[in-house]
């Protein structure tokens, strides 16, 4: 059915639009103005109308870990959070390292998903870091990128081969940077709080040494690399300098790295346990600076659902990660826009335009002819995060009870309403 989104403040950074105007939807696409007759009117007065958000880093857990999340529940959470496209990481069971699993995910998403799902294939078979996956087959089946996320590609030689080989298929390579010999059993950031809590620390170098490695490999091979979830001041600086030299490196950070520090672990809070770990005030400030100056291209959630039984245990034994789809936009508004770090159009760039560009997917724009993927949100509405209301199957969020700004009113995917605020 035809739809018109009226009276909203349209922020479409790809087209340099930031003004009150109407958006016309027909046949699942954004179109030029048509007569109001026979069209469904969505009143967006007081709201921002933007291209649907794109999360380039989520874990949908299906196949294999349906007790944590499914494609149905994960995409429902995405829709609730204003995301119209998500790219899901390959650490499923079986690992998404072959065309059959990619096809399974795409079929399942087609049938049960609320938003567009773009599978990411594994760089190496079984994510073991030993042999390359069939990268050509993965791409042909619909994988939009490759990554061994959750695990690093520990061998520099293997990573170099992956970059060079993947260039033959023009598929982005996303690197999870973590030097295991530096992690050395660590479970939180190494610093005052790890000493205070008696928990094993993970030094910044565990991340930064591999960020440096991959920047050097990208520079040497000329193949682009995307660095996942940067968390430290050092990583930001390495990437900033690389970009100045013209290295084709892009990177993402996550809302928790600009809104929380390792102090959140006090009390052995397992919902503050993630990988990379929450860092210090200094790192949070540096990550914000990197978001501001463009060093950070994208904000991704690293949405990592875990069952309560995997979190309600000793800190050392607790699973890494937090859910993020249903809080990301509010955290971006509250901690970045409202604090004057970046403007709203810049936030939309990092939550939609840039990740779409990095993955090469048709999203991130309200241009005529583009898929009608739209988010409508009230940036000023206050919300109290309540995990029991999450659409995600898992509730492992450190933000329960937080007062945040920004509430999603509508999420429209391909012209259909995927979420509407009750």
């Amino acid at each position, binding site marked *: 059915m035809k739809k018109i989104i009226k009276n909203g403040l349209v922020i479409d950074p790809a087209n340099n639009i930031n003004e009150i105007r109407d958006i016309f939807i027909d046949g699942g696409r954004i179109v030029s103005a048509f007569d109001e007759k026979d069209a469904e009117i969505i009143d967006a007065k007081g709201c921002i109308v933007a291209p649907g958000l794109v999360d380039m880093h989520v874990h949908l857990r299906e196949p294999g870990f349906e007790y944590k999340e499914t494609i149905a529940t994960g995409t429902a959470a995405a829709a609730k959070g204003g995301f119209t496209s998500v790219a899901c990481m390959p650490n499923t069971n079986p690992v998404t390292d072959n065309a059959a699993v990619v096809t399974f995910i795409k079929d399942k998403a087609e049938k049960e998903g609320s938003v567009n799902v773009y599978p990411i294939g594994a760089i190496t078979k079984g994510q073991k870091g030993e042999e390359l996956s069939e990268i050509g087959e993965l791409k042909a089946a619909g994988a939009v990128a490759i990554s061994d996320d959750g695990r690093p590609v520990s061998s520099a030689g293997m990573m170099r081969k992956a970059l060079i080989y993947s260039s033959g298929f023009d598929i982005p390579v996303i690197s999870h940077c973590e030097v295991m010999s530096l992690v050395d059993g660590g479970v939180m950031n190494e610093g005052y709080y790890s000493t205070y809590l008696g*928990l094993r620390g993970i030094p910044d170098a565990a991340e930064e040494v591999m960020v440096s490695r991959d920047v050097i490999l990208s520079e040497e091979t000329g193949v682009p690399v995307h660095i996942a979830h940067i968390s430290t001041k050092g990583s930001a600086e390495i990437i900033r300098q690389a970009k100045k030299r013209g290295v084709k490196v892009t990177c993402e950070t996550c809302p928790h790295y600009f809104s929380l520090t390792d102090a959140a672990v006090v009390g052995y809070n397992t919902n503050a346990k993630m990988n990379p770990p929450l860092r210090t005030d200094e790192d949070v400030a540096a990550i914000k600076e990197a978001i501001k100056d463009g060093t950070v291209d994208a904000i991704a959630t690293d949405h990592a659902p875990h069952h309560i039984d995997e979190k309600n245990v000793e800190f050392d034994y607790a699973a890494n990660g937090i859910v993020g789809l249903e809080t990301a936009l509010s955290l971006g508004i509250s901690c970045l826009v409202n604090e004057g770090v970046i403007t709203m159009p810049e936030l939309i760039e990092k939550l939609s335009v840039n990740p779409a560009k990095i993955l090469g997917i048709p999203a991130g724009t309200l241009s005529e002819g583009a898929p009608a993927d739209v988010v409508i949100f009230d940036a000023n509405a206050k919300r109290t995060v309540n995990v029991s209301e999450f659409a995600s199957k898992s509730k492992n969020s450190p933000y329960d009870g937080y007062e945040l700004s920004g509430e999603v009113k509508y999420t429209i995917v391909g012209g259909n309403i995927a979420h509407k605020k009750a």
Partner: protein
Amino acid sequence: MNWTRKDLLGLKDVSAEEIQYILDNAATMKHILSQNVKKVPHLRGKSVITLFYENSTRTRMSFELAGKYLSADTANITASGSSVAKGENLLDTGRTLDVMGCDVIVMRHNCSGAPHLLSQHVNASVINAGDGMNEHPTQALLDMFTMVEKKGSLKGLKVAILGDVLHSRVARSNFYGLNTMGAKVYVASPATLLPKNVEELGVTVCKTVEEAIKDADVVMNLRMQLERQKSGLFPSVSEYAKYYGLNEDKLKLAKPDALIMHPGPVNRGVEITTGIADHERSVIDEQVTNGVAIRMALLYIFANRRNEE
């Protein structure tokens, strides 16, 4: 004082008044220990369970004897001989003990924070008998009790703590307790075994053992676990002993009446020489005796806490 604290998870947030109260109670308990018949009825009808996920000789026996001397019913669970070995999680194990009517759960666990997790889910008092690298509060209390016995007061004492501070829960609990009671703590250890930002816990970091020991009232050596050498944290036992161990020559730098302490079990020839372990100023055996007194005091305080409920 009116005791309100439910659990003893660490000394991090325990006040000077509370520590003093425990030490005073332990003095009374030590008197009982010196009697011919070491049994009093104070905890008759109370139950104490020791729940140990790690091996222990002195701490577990010390708690068990402390309970028995006070006429409490005591029982032991070790991870290998219980449902834990069948895969039961910590909270289920803890709740099971709780609903059996246990008054005090004494817990040792290889994970930092495990007693904190348990304490939030049980009505019984939880006493931390050592959690990971975090705290071992009852050890620090018996150390402080021993220092007070010998030195009269903790205020202004210079205490040198030497060795593997990184992995030591004994060191951390002593830092907190000694700071709260007004002692000054100096540490020296191989740089690889010094936790990051440790000076922010209120201790002075020294580059050498000699610097830390100088004019010390108390010299405490930590146990060096020999497997640390295998993980590359120090090159050899002999180099460790030479630079970071305590011997008679180094001891001369401390005050002439300095106490020699060690939480045990001792690696003779590694962190301290046999000559030092058996030195006339070594109070290592007294620490063990005082451990029973401290644990009697704690069981007494915590098992009776619920009488007022």
